[in-house]
């Protein structure tokens, strides 16, 4: 038995080395292409390879609003988010302010606290719809073209932060951001339960103590 041990150890050692090699530990990082390592790239973006920003099988988003429509160019447009000029055809557009039509968006923290103007993120005229293929706001490049200008190193995940967050208690939040809405509901009921229960308990105890002290004195 004693003579067997060193050989067993060697066998186990070789087996471990083989498994380690097979697991790819020594193979280096995931590589995006011949010259760029993907990981070094994912956070501090700004430039993406063409294959990374190609719309995958969804076609381009360019829409010509006039095509097949009667009347005013804007009639029947429910998907302005896909237009190259999302405000195309709106009367007296040049004389209006953004918050006249988008009051909720102007209440965003980026505006109220960060003191940002709409155009600092959404760009100059014509403002492309956020789903338009060439828009800097398109989710495929938003983190690099918009977020990372202030938030250095912003990645695609970071760009899913909702800048124009719906009010937590609203129906809009319930439909569009349910996790936020239910977090709010949970915290609201927790607050009501904890404060309600312990305030009533404290008041009850205090009143009862006053009564028994008064009785003890008389």
């Amino acid at each position: 038995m004693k003579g067997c041990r060193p050989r067993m150890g060697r066998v186990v050692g070789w087996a471990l080395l083989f498994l380690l090699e097979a697991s790819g530990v020594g193979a280096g990082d995931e590589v995006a292409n011949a010259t760029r390592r993907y990981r070094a790239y994912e956070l501090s973006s700004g430039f993406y390879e063409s294959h990374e920003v190609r719309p995958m099988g969804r076609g381009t988003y360019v829409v010509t609003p006039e095509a097949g429509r009667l009347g005013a160019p804007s009639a029947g447009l429910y998907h302005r988010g896909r237009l190259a000029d999302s405000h195309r055809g709106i009367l007296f557009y040049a004389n209006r302010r953004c918050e006249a039509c988008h009051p909720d968006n102007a209440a965003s923290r980026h505006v109220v606290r960060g003191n940002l103007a709409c155009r600092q993120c959404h760009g100059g005229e014509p403002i492309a719809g956020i789903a338009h293929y060439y828009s800097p706001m398109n989710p495929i490049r938003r983190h690099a073209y918009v977020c990372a200008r202030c938030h250095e190193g912003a990645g695609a995940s970071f760009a899913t932060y909702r800048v124009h967050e719906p009010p937590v208690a609203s129906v809009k939040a319930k439909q569009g951001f349910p996790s936020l809405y239910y977090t709010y509901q949970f915290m609201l009921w927790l607050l009501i339960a904890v404060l309600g229960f312990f305030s009533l308990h404290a008041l009850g105890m205090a009143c009862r103590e006053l009564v028994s002290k008064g009785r003890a004195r008389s």
Partner: protein
Amino acid sequence: MIRTQKRFTLLDRFFHLSLMITFLIQGATGLGQLYITTPWGLALVRGLGGYERVLATHYGVGVAMTLLFLAHVAHALVRMGGRGWLGADSLVFSLRDVRHFGQNMRWVAGKGPPARLGRWSYWEKFDYWAVFWGMPILAVTGLMLYHSVAASRYFPGWSLNIASFLHRAEALLAMGYIFLVHFFMGHLRPSAFPLNPVIFTGDMSTEAVQEEKPAWADDLKAQGLWENGALTPPAPLVKLAYTLVGYAAVATGLYLLINTLILMGRMGLH
């Protein structure tokens, strides 16, 4: 000279005092940032040294608070390892607490005697455990918000919306509970008024133990420790010091809470 029983060790009192100070700093700097778009919030932030400094303070004190909390948990685990988790001296909730609560409610309604409380009453246990859910939520969401880009590598970016809301809501719950309920039970309740000093001195007079914690008094008597309590001389200067500290905390808390409630009605938690 009065005979006293040891209720809190020096380390317990250190943890309470440091939690009290860091909590108030976090409350003031946090509410200043939360309501910086209002005149009150702006004045508070300016008074505390400007936005950048308030943010840095909030972060630094938050990290210190978290480390102190972890140190307390480690210490409590070691102490529990020696003493066991359950029993009359334990802070873990038991069925007896439910019974005590029921008895106290009957007493409040004028039926029957008050509960014979042990060393830790059920509301004191809740005071203690409430920190255990508040701290992790506030620490994790606070770190996520401060290091938002790094956090978005491990969580989806939209979780920052939720972290931001949770941080505010949980802080509001904690402040509401401490400034309303905890301060009321420690200061304004007739048996505590003007201030319950035990958390600062660590010693509770045998009379107070007999009156407020009769079950603990029974335990001490059964163990033969009742007569072993230290003889503590009165220390008027120390009493003045902790009374001032206590009332400074109450005043700060109520000042923050009242302004928060006014602004909450106007603009919520934005």
